[in-house]
């Protein structure tokens, strides 16, 4: 049985199902009991204040506490209210959470999830609107998830919670209230498996999170011009499902990559680099890389929007890739 539920509900269900299944899962964060953005709201009624813990405003120490708890037998989920604030815990995430399993030669494990909504949705301003997920591609030992649909969110979050590594689970605010078909029955989606959101033969567009709806709009428009775009959603940036992307490229020979995070040093940089290293013979044209402007995000919605790639930008990038634009 499948219902159309929101992204928020899907995430909440994943928490609920996993917490029922495994008593070692706890949720830590600021106002997670009431749940300012609702993904955790009312969980406290079912699981009690010992498992759904309101913390002081101290992102670094919250993540630190999750690491210590994870190393000693719990499976903590930390909610960071805005993904911009993950930078406050960068030391704990990148230097500690991701490293102790390896340097302890496998003795310690840090099974934990950082759930964090972010991204631009107009009017929140420079430090409440960024898409910072690409930052976490570089440090070792972390997994990075960024789902684009309720279905994916639920299945991936359940896998993330069961994973024995620290997983960053990025949610885009513009998607949180979107609905999508989601089965009532138990399912999981493995981390590291891409999904083809639209089949096509002419150009491969790799996009994720809130760039997927834009890519699909662009694909529709292009289809009317006879250009069939394949939209590939990696869903997890680390580990990356290179096989699926490569399989698409082997059909299309054209690659466009889209993200809302800033372009310089973003996810697209890594993907384009993989392409030119490993798939050189399958590139008939320059890779087109779209991302946020390499500047802080201004507040005014007219400005903010202009800093992000649009469906139109994707259309143009595809046309450029095909050599159909001057």
């Amino acid at each position, binding site marked *: 049985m499948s219902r159309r539920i929101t992204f928020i509900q899907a995430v909440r269900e994943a928490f609920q199902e996993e917490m029922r299944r495994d008593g070692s899962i706890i949720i830590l964060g600021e106002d997670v*009991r*009431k749940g300012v953005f609702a993904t955790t709201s009312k969980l406290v009624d079912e699981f009690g204040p010992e498992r759904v813990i*309101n913390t002081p405003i*101290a*992102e670094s120490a919250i993540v630190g506490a999750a690491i210590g708890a994870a190393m000693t037998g719990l499976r903590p989920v930390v909610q960071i209210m805005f993904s911009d*604030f993950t930078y406050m815990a960068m030391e704990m995430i990148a230097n500690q959470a991701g490293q102790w399993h390896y340097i302890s030669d496998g003795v310690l494990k840090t099974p934990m999830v950082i759930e964090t909504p972010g991204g631009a949705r107009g009017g929140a301003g420079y*430090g409440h609107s960024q898409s910072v997920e690409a930052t976490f591609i570089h440090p070792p030992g972390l997994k990075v998830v960024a789902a684009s649909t309720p279905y994916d969110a639920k299945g991936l979050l359940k896998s993330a919670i069961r994973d024995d590594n620290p997983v960053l689970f990025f949610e885009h605010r513009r998607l949180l209230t979107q609905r999508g078909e989601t089965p009532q029955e138990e399912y999981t989606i493995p981390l590291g498996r891409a999904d083809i959101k639209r089949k096509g033969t002419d150009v491969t567009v790799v996009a994720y999170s809130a760039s997927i709806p834009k890519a699909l709009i662009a694909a529709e428009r292009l289809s009317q011009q006879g250009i069939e775009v394949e939209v590939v959603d990696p869903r997890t940036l680390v580990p990356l499902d290179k096989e699926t992307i490569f399989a698409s490229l082997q059909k299309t020979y054209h690659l466009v990559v889209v993200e809302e995070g800033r372009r310089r040093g973003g996810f697209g940089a890594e993907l384009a680099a993989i392409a030119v290293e490993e798939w050189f013979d399958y590139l008939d044209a320059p890779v087109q890389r779209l991302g946020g402007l390499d500047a802080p995000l201004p*507040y005014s*919605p007219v*400005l903010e929007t202009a800093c992000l790639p649009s469906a139109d930008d994707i259309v143009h990038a595809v046309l450029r890739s095909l050599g159909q634009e001057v």
Partner: protein
Amino acid sequence: MALDHDTLKDLYRKMVTVRLLEKRVEQLVMAARIPCSGHFGLGQEAVGVGVCGPLRKEDYLFGTHRGFAEYIGKGMTPAEILTEYYGKATSLSRGRLGQHLLKPEIGVMPLPSSLGSEFGMAVGAALSSKLRGSGRVTVNLFGEGTAGQSDFGPALEMASLWRLPLIFVCNNNQYVELAHYREVVATEDIAPRAGAYGVPYEIVDGNDITLVYQATERAASRARQGGGPTFLEFKTYRRCTHYTGDPGGYQPKEEIAAWAQKDPIDRCRRLMMAQGLWTAADEQAMLEAVSAEIEAAVQFAEESPYPDVSTIYEHIYA
């Protein structure tokens, strides 16, 4: 000791401006004229306004996300605030800042999105004043929840070590978002934490504008005389919800009602009336003038154009 009459009237008018402006902003947010959410401080206007009272124009203020009181207190105008909230080209930042009000000319310094990131910055501003002998005082205002943030301790340590002209002001309004502060703050009072770093402190009724003003004045004069930092904790109460999207319901009605009795604006008005400084006619005239100022600002903001999209490429680097 009482404040002099003009000062009191000025503070009163500012508090009223804050209250009316907040209400107006709320309407405009709800009507989707303003794209951001609003964080209001109904009932706690005396803190921000009173703290800024004894400051000089050139003194530095690091204010809060719930900071209409301190921004108006420090001298920003409704038009300056509204054009930022609207994201219009006529705002000081040409639409870039939104809620993160800024006007260094009159000492209004950055309000970081991330709570607590101002602690280090305020230390730096105070260090700068001290090294350059500028005589400027820095005020770092924050909530009791924000006092739990990581850089709170290091800021106290540095301010204390280097005897910086820095006033820490904790606006203890008893709520941290949707929770009573004791759910996430271990102690009734925050101020003794400063004492443990060697920073002298006072705990003061934050709903009495005279006391707020005077405590800040003492701290500022200590700072200017090279006496180093002071920590002030003002006890007050947030009678509204956390932000425009918050339906509320978690604050006991009786608690709200009890604090309504201690409303700082009412108290100040009663004081002025008792002293014969203020009449019903004065009140009426003032309300009209303030409302007119706010309405003119709304109109100005409404009529202002949005910034030109091409401006996004400007000032990426200095």
